[in-house]
């Protein structure tokens, strides 16, 4: 039956696609958890829209991974156990408060934005086509997160404290974004560290927030060693297909 988990044959290209697809789907899922809980109506719409963009990007990438592996888009999303997921730990952490959600989005989008822009010139034509859509969407995500981080950091004492806590807590999860990747269909993440740091520094300084020192960095997500939080997220994300195998509507 379809409840059986799938095992994906991972070539370097498949792995590169899954890194991006899994990051997008898991962060999209986290943002979608805000639906009905956002602080104001405009933010409710914004977070849902950003989630929709990310889930859309994930679908295009899973469709491509499906062509490469023979597993369909839905199978890749719904029938892999936690150790088969290749997302970085940063995106799977629970939402925390609004400052944590916004700070995480900024740290991720500051990477995704130059990543997709560079990837538009990829020699892999499918990947370049996905990138051409994603880079425009990500520009909006980055701007939105940066504007909010400035309001929070340069806002009240309480919002500043929460934003600084979020930056400090999330910082050790940023190193994994730049880990070396085998294969050359996509931009090398390490080559984007300089531009990422420039964007993040500019937002942090406008927000009157301090940038933590680079120290020991968390890792393991790309290798399938996840935090306990991913299992809970997948339990919800995969519930329907696991309970009613092959259900469609």
């Amino acid at each position, binding site marked *: 039956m379809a409840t059986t988990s799938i095992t994906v044959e991972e070539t370097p290209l498949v792995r590169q696609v899954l890194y991006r697809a899994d990051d997008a789907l898991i962060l999209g899922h986290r943002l979608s958890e805000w639906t009905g809980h956002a602080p104001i109506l405009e933010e409710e719409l914004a977070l849902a829209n950003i989630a929709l963009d990310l889930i859309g990007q994930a679908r*295009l990438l899973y469709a491509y991974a499906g062509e490469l592996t023979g597993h369909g888009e839905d199978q890749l999303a719904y029938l892999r156990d936690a150790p088969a997921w290749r997302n970085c730990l940063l995106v799977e952490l629970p939402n925390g408060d609004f400052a944590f959600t916004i700070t995480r989005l900024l740290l991720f989008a500051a990477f995704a934005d130059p990543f997709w822009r560079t990837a538009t010139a990829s020699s892999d034509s499918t990947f370049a086509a996905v990138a051409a859509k994603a880079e425009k969407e990500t520009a909006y995500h980055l701007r939105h997160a940066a504007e909010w981080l400035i309001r929070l950091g340069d806002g009240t004492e309480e919002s500043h404290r929460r934003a600084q806590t979020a930056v400090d807590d999330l910082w050790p999860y940023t190193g994994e974004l730049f880990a070396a990747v085998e294969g050359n269909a996509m931009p090398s993440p390490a080559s984007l560290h300089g531009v990422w740091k420039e964007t993040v520094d500019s937002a942090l300084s406008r927000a009157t927030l301090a940038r933590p020192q680079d120290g020991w960095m968390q890792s393991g997500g790309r290798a399938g060693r996840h935090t306990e939080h991913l299992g809970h997220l997948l339990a919800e994300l995969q519930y329907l297909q696991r309970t009613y195998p092959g259900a469609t509507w």
Partner: protein
Amino acid sequence: MVAAASLRERALAALQDVCDPEIPVLTISDLGILRHVSVSGDTVDVTITPTYSGCPAMTMITLDIETALSRAGINARVRTCLSPAWTSDWLTVAAREKLAAHGVAPPPHTSSRRALFSAAQLACPHCGSADTEQLSEFGSTACKSLHRCRACREPFDAFKCH
């Protein structure tokens, strides 16, 4: 040959009535979503392109195309093509006028990749005043942002620049 050309023309005529479900004043060809229509044998191949990666209207649009062609007695296959990526610059002049008349500001002819903290200046589609402010860059659908006119005090949607 003649049969194929006339089949294609009948298909194009039927497709003239297919509108975007979220902005019903625009047809899919106004929007630039409809890319190619070709004939192979007795089947019409229609190629469309998504506006946004996660646009939920694409499934609906595919279904509307199939329905419109089936009503005209035409067998159709609908295919999605990602490259070259759709951009809001593909909106036709007619589309921009229809949008404004519908109360939605058309997208400015600039890239979404503007400076990190700058905001686009839009004219109010109701009164034409340039004295407007952005309420949120994310509106009721993925393709729209939310604004307010300081002159006539009316809120309005704007088609996002992508």
